[in-house]
């Protein structure tokens, strides 16, 4: 996943922040969000997969306007986080953390047998790395070389989160 986010201390949730489900009808807003925030442009058909896995996706609102979104994809027993994005003016409010916590909770409670959540973080994004590690993700020792095809640096860290103790 790509993220640009600095992690606040346990800040209080702003009264204007609320959360909602992602559906086929509003996935367009998530798409607009990602196109603006993230350096990678995802294909349209990817968002169809996101709608199928809508249980592990979520939208964040500020005064009824979408400002953040997390999108994921189910690969067998592993859940892959495709993207986590929050618009620049709305960062440092704890929105990113709340979105991730929602995904983790959903993965932990259901009976679909999800064993692991994993994602990629671009090399050089130390803030993002710290963000996930604080949530409990563990970094793989090897770096994935040439993961990104169109942006620099092309390498990525691979992080995992074990949902059930192996």
């Amino acid at each position: 996943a790509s993220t640009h986010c600095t992690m606040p201390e346990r800040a209080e949730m702003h009264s204007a922040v609320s959360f909602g489900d992602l559906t086929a009808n509003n996935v367009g807003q998530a798409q607009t969000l990602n196109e603006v925030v993230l350096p990678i442009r995802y294909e349209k058909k990817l968002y169809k997969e996101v709608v199928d896995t809508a249980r592990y996706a979520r939208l964040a609102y500020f005064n009824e306007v979408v400002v953040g979104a997390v999108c994921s994809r189910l690969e067998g027993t592993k859940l892959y986080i495709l993207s986590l994005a929050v618009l620049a003016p709305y960062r440092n409010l704890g929105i990113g953390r709340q979105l991730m916590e929602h995904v983790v909770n959903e993965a932990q409670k259901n009976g679909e047998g999800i064993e692991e959540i994993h994602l990629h973080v671009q090399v050089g994004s130390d803030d993002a790395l710290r963000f996930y590690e604080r949530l409990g993700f563990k970094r793989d020792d090897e770096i994935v070389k040439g993961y990104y095809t169109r942006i620099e640096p092309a390498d990525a860290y691979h992080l995992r989160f074990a949902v059930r103790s192996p």
Partner: protein
Amino acid sequence: AHAPVRPRRPTFPRTGSQAKAREAYRLSSYYRKLASLCTGAVCVCVCVRVCARADPTTRCSVRCCRRSLWHALLAAMAPPSQQLPLKEANSFRQIVRLYEQKQYKKAIKQADSILKKFPEHGETLAMKGLVLGCMHADEKEKAYDFVRKGLRHNMRSHVCWHVFGLLYRQDGQFEEASKSFKNALRIDKENFQIMRDLSMLQVQMRDLEGFVETRRSMLVLNATRKASWVGFAIASALNGDYQQAIKAIESYERVGNSSAEAGNDEAYKLSEQALFKVYLRMKMGDLEAALKDLEENKSVIVDVESFMEYKAKIFLQLNRVDDAEKMYRELLERNSECYSYHEGLLRCLGVSSCDVQNVNGASDDLQDRLVAVYQELAEKYPRSLAVQRIPLNWSKGNSFESRVYEYAVSFIARGIPSFFADMKPLYANEEKARILDKVFWNILESVQKDGRLPAQCNATGAHGDVHEQGVMWIKAYLAQHCAIRGEYKKSVELIDEAISHTPTCIDLYLFKAQILENGGDVNGAAALTERARKMDLQDRYLNTVSAKMLMRADKTSTVEADHPGSEEVMRLFTKEGTYNNLYDMQCMWYEIETGKSFVRQKKFGRAIKKFVGVQQHFDDFYNDQFDFHS
């Protein structure tokens, strides 16, 4: 009630002897003999049979006898083929019953059985025509032929004329129908059913004088039913004769509500009756009497809101300003958001223009008084929006400026998109527009610099803090503000800044689309509304806005897969995705906009089809009103 009209002089069609007829008419004994003669003849009126079965000298009401005897006379004088023997007469009555029960096939069978023996019986022919007209909508010609044939055979039968009228009515030709009913009435002057049908037609065509007359005749015939009195009263009121209407209602009240139909809504009906009387007196201009009526009937009137509103209006018209003001304050206690109550209050306080939306500000000497009153209201109803917004209309200059600062606080803090729409009427006043310009640029500067509202807003502590999103909303407001003042370039700049701040805010695209459209760029506007629509596919409002913009850009048909035309976009929200649904739902904005677009595209045939559809809707409105007269 007026006396029943004398029957016209009869002529004996076979012998053509007028003298004989005159003789018969004058001899009173002749009538009695005729009554006994008529036991055999077909006569629609039950009365005659009763009289004839009993002693012919029995006293029934003169009116009734005369009518029924006249009837019998006619029937006796009708050509023999028009009188049916008892068995066929019963059969004929059954046809009428079957028609009323909508059992058309059986009715036709009965009619045919009578016609086999009496092929020239006018009334049966007419009934057959009527039933045919009901059964098959496309056999109208045949139906008319039958009825006309029947009428030719028996011009003197009120049944034939009545049926003719019914057929015309079904066809929607109200003018012809009323003529036929009038003919029927000329023959049978006291037939309640015909009168009823005629009165419904007259009110549909707004023949008000005729309507009053018909209703009066109905009242004379049936003075015990409440509905007759009410019908007559309403007819008089419609015709402008309020005095008569009031008398009618009062007469009925004197007679008393004898009917045992006291249902759950009896109290409400009485209340409405009382209020109706008050309304009539007000219309007549008799305000003192109206007020007295209101007071007397206070215990009966359950609709407290109307009671208070009428009272307040009457006080104001009588120039009893203090009483009126008290009433309007009481009304505001019930509902502080109602603009008409505020209007009443302002008129009491002496604001000369009665339009509460008048943005030109009240005169200077009134300002102090208004400030005091609205200060009081604001303390009593702190959450009322109207109490905050209306002062913006009547205030001027510096006081207006400070009020705008305070009004803006909640809108900006909560990011309410409709803020500009709320303020838009104020721009009609040039001085206020200039003040608004100053105020909002000031607010923007302050929020961008410190993240706080400026001091003039009087928002203390946390209320004065504005999250960065507020900047986006203020820029959006200023964009619309610049557009209405004609500064288009600046307007587009501002809205673009807002969009790049939060590209997921759908309202911003709609604002920009409106700005572009007003500036003349319809294609750009359509592209934006489409983008907005795709972001929330279950929003019907976005669908209609986008469809309308596509029509304005003349993109009615779909050219590329990903960019649907307006026709396809409209279909997304109709039942089963069909076009017919839009016609059935009488969606006229769609028909008009699409029609205009087709005209621009020179597809005149399709345009005409849409416009004709609109016309048909209005015809349907008019025709559908008919069912509500009964």
